């Protein structure tokens, strides 16, 4: 058909010439906010209610990092999905997805203050570090006290069993005229007692250290049964190892994908296209597992006694939804600056709007299912999360921002095709969704702050929202600066991708 665009006309790509001073302003604001944040956090001050400033601000930093990390991870998801589903519609915007995804290493770096125990954030956020140390030292002390008694008890039990066995054997041999039935009765008893005494003797004959360890484990369980049940997972070395795996899978995987894609810009080698597809298919599962466990480690473990199996997918839904929003915003910004002038059409916006709509519904589906199952089952261990968030201030907050703001309003707005294809309206909806994502992550992390730091004494620590915003501006400024820098490092779209034709001539 006439009027088809030819990808040969676009094979040299389009270069981003920088956003003028905007990036540097963002960096300046971000750096100042971050510096101010850490100065205040380390000043060792107290909040108005007398709680440790460092501990309170740990939650602010986690909030800011997770918000932007979720968007970067969403960028990686869209890249993986685009390759794995053999898509052609979004080849033009795929580089933007890749650029968003490559922010993962930046944000994992910004997460280091949370990981390093010296900063003082880690133990404030995740009580299990301290609770575990307490439980273990209690267990140690108790084990030391009871050691002699415990070992003696085990030995006595073993000796007693051996004594019983000897007695029965003697009894049997003392019977002169034994009937087969009685003989069998004795044999059965001898057999079971032999087994029992063997087990007890084996137990008692172990080296003393093994027995003490056993006692220590029992005392650990007595001191904190919930933590004892999760002792293999909530363990410092394994926790650090997992952080390393996240860097490897999320950061490393994204780096590989993006660098392959950039290499293709020069050579145009179609083999690289296939290679990226294979890579994406192989990465999808590790990606899902890494993100799920990252949010288990960082968010679910804020209260180690609580658990939800839908947690990973809940955070994923928000991440995918809002990184699509950021993609729309970045694309529209670039178009306003004159890029993508004759390549991106309403059709691309329509698809992106549809995907955003789908994920608005998906998020609501997952969020409601998580709530519904816990609400309906009414099991003490599970309801804790929603009890905190369904009472007082947080109840109104949940209804306004999460039920109405995060679902009903964008759901209805995105039903209308005109809204999806009109740049201004879809950008407004994307910003709205980002704002709701802000409230969602805030609700997850900050609602936990006061109950966690005050052992449930208060539900709110006054005046802390300012520092939450400060952290958000700090991380956000750095994020925007890095994103703008990355945009300029390669063509704005994969200019020699074999699927470019399809994307250029997209029709819905």
């Amino acid at each position: 058909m006439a009027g088809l665009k030819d990808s040969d006309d676009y094979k040299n790509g389009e270069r981003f010439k920088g956003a003028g001073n905007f990036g540097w302003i963002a960096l300046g604001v971000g750096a100042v906010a971050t510096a101010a944040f850490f100065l205040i956090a380390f000043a060792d001050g107290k909040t108005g209610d007398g709680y440790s400033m460092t501990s309170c601000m740990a939650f602010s930093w986690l909030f800011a990092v997770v918000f932007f990390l979720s968007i970067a991870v969403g960028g990686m998801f869209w890249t993986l999905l685009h390759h794995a589903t053999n898509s052609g519609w979004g080849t033009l915007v795929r580089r933007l997805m890749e650029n968003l995804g490559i922010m993962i290493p930046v944000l994992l770096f910004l997460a280091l203050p949370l990981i390093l125990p010296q900063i003082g954030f880690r133990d404030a956020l995740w009580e299990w570090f301290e609770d575990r140390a307490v439980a273990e030292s209690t267990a140690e002390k108790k084990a030391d006290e009871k050691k002699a008694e415990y070992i003696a008890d085990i030995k006595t039990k073993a000796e007693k069993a051996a004594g019983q066995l000897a007695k029965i054997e003697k009894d049997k041999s003392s019977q002169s005229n034994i009937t087969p039935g009685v003989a069998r009765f004795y044999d059965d008893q001898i057999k079971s007692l032999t087994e029992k005494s063997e087990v007890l003797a084996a137990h008692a004959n172990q080296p003393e250290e093994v027995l003490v360890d056993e006692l220590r484990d029992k005392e650990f369980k007595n001191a904190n049964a919930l933590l004892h049940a999760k002792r293999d997972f909530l363990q410092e070395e394994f926790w650090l190892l997992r952080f390393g795996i996240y860097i490897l899978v999320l950061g490393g995987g994204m780096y590989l994908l993006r660098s392959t894609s950039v290499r293709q810009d020069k050579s145009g080698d179609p083999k690289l296209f296939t290679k990226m597809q294979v890579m994406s298919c192989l990465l999808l599962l590790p990606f899902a597992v890494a993100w799920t466990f990252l949010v288990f480690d960082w968010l679910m473990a804020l209260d180690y006694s609580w658990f939800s199996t839908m947690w990973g997918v809940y955070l994923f839904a928000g991440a995918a939804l809002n990184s699509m929003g950021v993609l729309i915003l970045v694309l529209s910004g670039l178009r306003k600056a004159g890029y993508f002038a004759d390549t991106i059409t309403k059709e691309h916006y329509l698809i992106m709007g549809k995907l955003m709509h789908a994920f608005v519904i998906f998020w609501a589906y997952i969020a409601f299912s998580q709530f519904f199952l816990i609400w309906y089952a009414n099991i003490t261990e599970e309801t804790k999360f929603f009890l905190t968030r369904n009472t007082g201030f947080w109840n109104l907050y949940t209804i306004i921002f999460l039920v109405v703001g995060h679902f009903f309003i964008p759901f209805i707005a995105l039903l209308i095709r005109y809204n999806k294809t009109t740049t201004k309206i879809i950008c407004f909806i994307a910003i709205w969704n980002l704002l709701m994502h802000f409230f969602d992550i805030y609700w997850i992390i900050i609602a936990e702050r006061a109950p966690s730091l005050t052992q449930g004494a208060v539900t709110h620590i006054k005046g802390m929202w300012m520092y939450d915003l400060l952290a958000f501006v700090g991380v956000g400024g750095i994020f925007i600066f890095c994103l703008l820098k990355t945009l300029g490092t390669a063509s704005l779209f994969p200019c020699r991708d074999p699927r470019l034709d399809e994307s250029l001539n997209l029709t819905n």
Partner: protein
Amino acid sequence: MSDSTTSSKELFGYVAEFESAADLYHAAEKVRDAGFKKWDVHTPYPVHGIDHAMGLGKSWLSAVVLAGGVAGSFTALFLQFFTQVSLYPTVVQNKPTNLFTIPAFFPVTFELTILFAAFSTLFGLLVFIQLPRWNHPLFESELFKKFSDDGFILVIESRDPRFKRDKTKSFLEEIGAGEIEAVVV
């Protein structure tokens, strides 16, 4: 006029075959621009953008689906609130029986919304495309049958106000039609 019509029969319209999807696409644009309304194209496979080339507006089906979905939501909510909150308050695990019972009602509401929307899609579509029907005049045409094999077919019906027996035929020839058949029923 090569076609032999008798006075007792009526001309239903012209069936025209085109070489390729691209030819048909451009022909459709021209027919659209000529102002015809009662016409259609038939292809062996979906042609991207043909609705635009034909100048088709937005279908009203989505409005019907929306109405169906909303009706489904309200039906479900009404049924559940009426029976389990107002008529016979059902207390489960000390949960409230008032407006805040609503989480328990969501699964059914969701399902009925989907069900009603799906039904209104199907039945709305059947109404719009006037199905089911016993027969269609186009089935008389031998040429028309090619659309399910390798033919790209354009049909202009005689009930179109712009339809003129000779003029329309020459118009079709002009825009690149190969074989043209007059369907008489």
